[in-house]
């Protein structure tokens, strides 16, 4: 059997595989620790809201997931574009790895939003600018996944996906500014640079911890999926063969 250095020395996918393998346990540890602390503060220390009662606690997943799903879309479009422009395999694989987690976060933000809307607005759903543009984000994720999976040649699939992802990125600022540009049922920003923060300290702390937990989760699960994609697509290379023979890395 050949030595590890020879296999891991050169190609970007191989380097990514070994580096992400080192990071994964720490990312999962971080996810569990941050989520545990965030949930404890969110449910046991943060007081009940004067207007919304305990229904406001939905914010601790709704806002992090909605926020991260939008940033993840931009990250997906960025890596897809890099992969397309510079013919960088690893960048395209990262874009593909991000899409399902972005779609999941979007579904969960819509789900938590519906369950929050019912008791506070009296409706599960309304076709206002924020909710509608955010629903389009889900369709963009699903469209990207369907497109890259439908084309057999990985390189052409990556290129087509990149085009869709980059064009769709225009929707992200529309979602963000929708609450300002149009009169929406959805409220404006609670936390902003200009307006300061309009919530209690413990509520804010829980929200920050849950946001960091969701970030750690997103990195961890995207890395896991990217590792699977690397092995699938680099099957012909010597380092993947060696890895599969020794059974390491799962």
């Amino acid at each position, binding site marked *: 059997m050949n030595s590890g250095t020879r296999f891991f020395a050169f190609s970007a996918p191989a380097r990514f595989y070994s580096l992400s393998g080192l990071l994964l346990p720490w990312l999962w540890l971080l996810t569990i620790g941050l989520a545990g602390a965030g949930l404890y503060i969110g449910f046991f220390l943060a007081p009940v809201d004067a207007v919304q009662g305990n*229904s406001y606690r939905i914010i601790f997943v709704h806002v992090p997931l909605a926020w991260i799903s939008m940033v993840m879309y931009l990250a997906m479009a960025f890596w897809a574009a890099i992969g397309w422009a510079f013919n960088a395999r690893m960048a395209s694989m990262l874009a593909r790895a991000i899409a399902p987690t972005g779609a999941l976060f979007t579904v969960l933000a819509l789900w938590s939003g519906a369950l*929050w809307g*019912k008791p506070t607005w009296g409706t599960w759903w309304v076709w206002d600018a924020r909710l509608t543009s955010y629903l389009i984000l889900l369709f963009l994720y699903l469209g990207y996944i369907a497109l890259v999976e439908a084309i057999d040649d990985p390189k052409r699939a990556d290129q087509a996906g990149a085009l869709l992802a980059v064009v769709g990125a225009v929707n992200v600022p529309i979602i963000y500014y929708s609450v300002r540009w149009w009169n929406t049922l959805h409220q404006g920003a609670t936390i902003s640079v200009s307006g300061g923060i309009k919530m209690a300290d413990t509520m804010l702390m829980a929200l920050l911890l849950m946001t960091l937990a969701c970030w750690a989760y997103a990195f961890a699960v995207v890395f896991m999926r990217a590792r699977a994609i690397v092995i*699938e697509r680099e*099957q012909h290379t010597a380092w993947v063969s060696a890895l*599969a*023979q020794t059974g390491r*890395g799962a």
Partner: protein
Amino acid sequence: MGGQWASAADFLFMGGYGLYVWGTFGVTLTLMVAEPLLARRRCRQALVDAARAEVWKDSTP
């Protein structure tokens, strides 16, 4: 139950919003446990497939 909750039932009741709050956190937790498990399975399957491809390559003249 500590803090602001009188009992476990009080905690689950969530001031009348139990269905909405636990509906949110329950589904989120379920899917966020399922996703990494699926990703791990895909990773393992990819390694198995790669090993199988290697065996096939070795046995082909």
